């Protein structure tokens, strides 16, 4: 009996990793989105604290829709529907958010004299107060994982991996 080609084991590992990545990112987005959607006023106050959006209508739009958008993308990833599109949306959300958290952390660090890894606050991710150092690392990892999912050809446990 001939042994299977060496790359098929790698392929199976990549496949499994893609499924796990989908479920991890999807589950996180679903959880974080739900916790914010259930307390939209608290999220609105947090978005305001970033002092980036000043027009009340736009502030309300972001605070009202972002949590539900996260839930939507989370569900798509969990179910394996439009995986590339959902993963791309995850990157689109994660990158600016991570940058904003970084900028806010730098501002706090300068104001307080504390280092990055000594700061803890509610960044608006849906997990309450977090150590920012750890949060930034997590976000970067999630962004990289989401970006990898965009290129992944995995089809396992997918309801409809591609819409078109």
């Amino acid at each position, binding site marked *: 009996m001939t042994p299977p080609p060496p790359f098929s084991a790698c392929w199976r590992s990549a496949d499994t990793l893609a499924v796990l990545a989908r479920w991890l990112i999807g589950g996180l987005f679903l959880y974080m989105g739900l916790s914010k959607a259930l*307390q939209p006023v608290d999220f609105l106050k947090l978005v305001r604290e970033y002092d980036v959006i000043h027009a009340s*209508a736009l502030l309300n739009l972001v605070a009202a829709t972002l949590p539900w958008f996260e839930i939507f993308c989370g569900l798509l990833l969990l179910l394996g529907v439009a995986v*590339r599109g959902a993963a791309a*949306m995850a990157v689109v959300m994660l990158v600016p958010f991570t940058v904003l958290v970084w900028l806010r952390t730098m501002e706090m660090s300068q*104001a307080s004299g504390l280092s990055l890894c000594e*700061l803890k*606050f509610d960044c608006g991710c849906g997990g309450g107060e977090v150590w920012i150092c750890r949060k930034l690392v997590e976000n970067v990892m999630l962004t990289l994982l989401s970006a990898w999912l965009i290129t992944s050809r995995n089809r396992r446990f997918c309801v409809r991996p591609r819409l078109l």
Partner: protein
Amino acid sequence: METVLVAAAGLIFALVANALSPRGLRLNRDYFPQADKPTTVASGMTNTVSSSSPSDNADATSERLARQGLQQVKSLQVVAWFRDARYEQGAVVFVDARNEVHYAAGHIPGAWQFDHYHAERYLPTVLPICLKAEQVVVYCTGGDCEDSEFAAIILRDSGIPREKLFVYVGGITEWTTNGLPVETGERRSGQLIPRP
């Protein structure tokens, strides 16, 4: 193309979900009327830090209230009004500007709840009571909490004369620190937090 479709579908889903959710935000409402730049608060390993100093905050709060035509009231006066017989008669009214969870956890005994983020639910009850009162004291957590100011602005814009409206900047935090009675649950529940 798939990304665009996901984005469009996601936005529609989000708008519909927000509209249907009983906790949804109203897109055309200004939840922070006449607001200044928000203060950021964070915790460090040893202490809580803010993007501005406490004295800066106090000065900024006083200036902000004055600009909006609101009066600030200090702890001594608040306690005097609380102990005045007119309080029981409804001539002095306390308004708690926090949400249900915080209100139920502890409020000034007899205070009316007015979560200004859902003003339409509370105004029908609170407004007539405030109109009859001689002094209306609005408070929230204290410190960097601006909810009392926003609630006072809404009450002012709803017809409560400015001369009657007072913002207790120290809030429930200062009230509790001073060892004053705190009621839990509903208004006039009679459940007071025992003092140590």
